[in-house]
């Protein structure tokens, strides 16, 4: 059963076709990587899937709901309820501690719960760094806080934009291990990346070029 389905989606900025008649689907529980060079339309696709932008034409079904024509207020609700976001720059609120940053996500979603937030930090191995400010954490630690923040509300879809782009190899492996765990628990993962190694960790890789799906690669070695 597909969680996400794009049907003939185009996004046009003036003369530029950022996405050109793209169709694809992602099943529930699937781990998909999206690759492509700069300007291939990855970010535009990420914005549309993440309910932060609307396509010029086409349909986007997320969990059976067409999000291509919703108001931005409704999109905010959908994003909050169904999607966990992870960014390349591991954006954190810089004056809040690690645990507070996780709680911000709970705050907008439902109810802040410090105990649960601490458990989430424990899951990413940062239980004892919970009271540190972002400036006191390394890049890898910050990204792990962002993973904890993304999973705290149990989203159906985790959308990661170059999650390992600013990390060293050790931290990259920690983050990929976390993704593998989430995948095992049934969370759907879409990871936008440049890095073939990160793409190889996924079940399937979709390659974008000039706003179109150039090819799809099934990872034969997944899980091995």
């Amino acid at each position, binding site marked *: 059963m597909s969680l996400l389905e794009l049907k003939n989606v185009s996004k046009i900025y003036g003369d530029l076709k950022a996405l050109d008649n793209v169709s694809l689907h992602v099943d529930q529980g699937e781990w998909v990587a999206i690759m492509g060079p700069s300007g291939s339309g990855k970010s535009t696709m990420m914005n549309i899937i993440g309910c932060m932008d609307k396509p010029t034409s086409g349909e986007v079904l997320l969990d059976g709901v067409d999000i291509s024509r919703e108001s931005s207020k409704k999109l*905010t609700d959908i994003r909050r309820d169904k999607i966990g976001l992870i960014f390349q720059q591991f954006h954190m609120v810089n004056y809040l501690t690690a645990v507070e940053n996780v709680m911000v*996500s709970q705050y*907008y979603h439902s109810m*802040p719960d410090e105990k649960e937030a601490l458990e989430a930090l424990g899951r990413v191995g940062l239980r004892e760094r919970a009271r540190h400010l972002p400036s006191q954490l390394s890049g890898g630690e910050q990204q792990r806080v962002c993973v904890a923040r993304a999973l705290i509300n149990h989203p159906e879809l985790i959308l990661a934009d170059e999650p390992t782009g600013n990390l060293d190899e050790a931290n990259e492996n920690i983050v990929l291990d976390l993704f593998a765990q989430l995948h095992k628990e049934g969370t759907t993962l879409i990871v936008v990346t440049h890095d073939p190694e990160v793409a190889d960790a996924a079940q399937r890789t979709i390659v974008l070029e000039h706003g179109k799906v150039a090819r799809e690669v099934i990872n034969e070695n997944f899980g091995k």
Partner: protein
Amino acid sequence: MTKRRMFLRMITASLLRRRSRMLIALLSIGIGATILAGLVTIYVDVPRQMGAQFRSYGANMLLLPREGAVLNSESLSEALRQIPADQLVGAAPYRYVRLDMTTRQQSFTAAGTDFTQIVKTSPYFSVEGAYPAETRQVLVGKAIADTIGVKPGSTMELTYQPVSGAADKTPEESRVPGARLSGKVEGFGGGMVYVSAVLDDEARLLSVTVDASTQTPEYGGRVPEDEAFLRQFTGKSLPLTLGGGIDALTGATVTSSAVVDALNSATETAAAARPRTMNFTVTGILTTGGEEEGYVFLSLPDMEAMTGTDQLDVAELSVSAGADRLEAYAGAVSENCENVQARLVKRVARSEASVLEKLTALVFLVTLVVLLLTMICVSTTMMAVVSERRREIGLRKALGASDSSIRAEFLGEGLFLGLLGGVMGAVLGFVFAQVVSVNVFGSSITFQPLLLPAAVIVSMAIAAASCLLPIKHAVAIDPAVVLKGE
């Protein structure tokens, strides 16, 4: 943890952990609130301050005798009871006469007064030397001092020449120590009976002479020669009544009665008026820049000793009250005192009112401008804060923050800043007002307890209003900013 606690935690963390940025916003609100609270305190206190200040410009009320009545220390103190003691700054009585300095062949206007009161009603008087503290001391105006060349410590011999033309004086006024009186009354058969008398040092009759040449020689004509009859008058005080200590001469009742009546109506004659001379020590030279420099000032007891009367011409009052209250006090004096009438020195009272009006208008205007400047300043700062926190706002929206959450968070921060700034403003504003008051008006002010909540509410309102535009910008931020890499 409830949502509200998380909300407060985020807001306080934003203000406390981003100190340097928020300090600027806090400072602008705090300084604005400080100036506002200070100005409002001064605004409230200005009428009182200025009222006291204006009192240094001299009297604003005059007490004068009513027509046919006498103003003296007694009727004056009766009139002063109509004015609340705490608002009466001072009341200086004045009695003006001409005094001669025969040694120099000069003549001056002399004012008898109470020097302890002059200090209060005319604080602008500048005295080289000292005010007289005892009797037989004078304060000399600069113009006179220059003319006759006296300095503090000099002595002056001053002479009071009673006004010629006895008709000007009433019989009562004439009965002063040493006076020579004369009077006439119609006696028996329409003929005039003339009397003249000399008073002793205590204004009692010393000797009485009678001219009864128009009277029947065997009866009334005997009066001038009857020593027993005349001796009755010695040592008596006027007025007299026949039968009340004075017995009529047998067979000359009408003439005797005429003598008594003539004495009662006798006045001081010009020829009999005796000049009185006293020596004075100069204690100080007075500079005022006004006509007072042409006067010699002496104490009321000295003036009374020289002129033989405690009459006053005018009393100058300095009352610390606004024009309306002043009017009411003047009305009360005029209504309740039979001897005294009150007049306002309109020039002073009116300029007081107009200066006060202008001053309050000015303070109001400055308050308005400061209010506006504070709002612009806070608004600009919050605007900078919003653009600095663009990414954070985008992140919050990407994490699912609705527009109203973003609005509530920024408004919450603004109100919290307003609260802190208001408390700071109330405290510092009072200090500011106190400093201004002490330096400008020379008096301290009392803390208005209402100032604290008022300052807090006003600065929270200003902060909230200043945040409206920045919030609009914050809400418009696209959550996708967090995705576009850089």
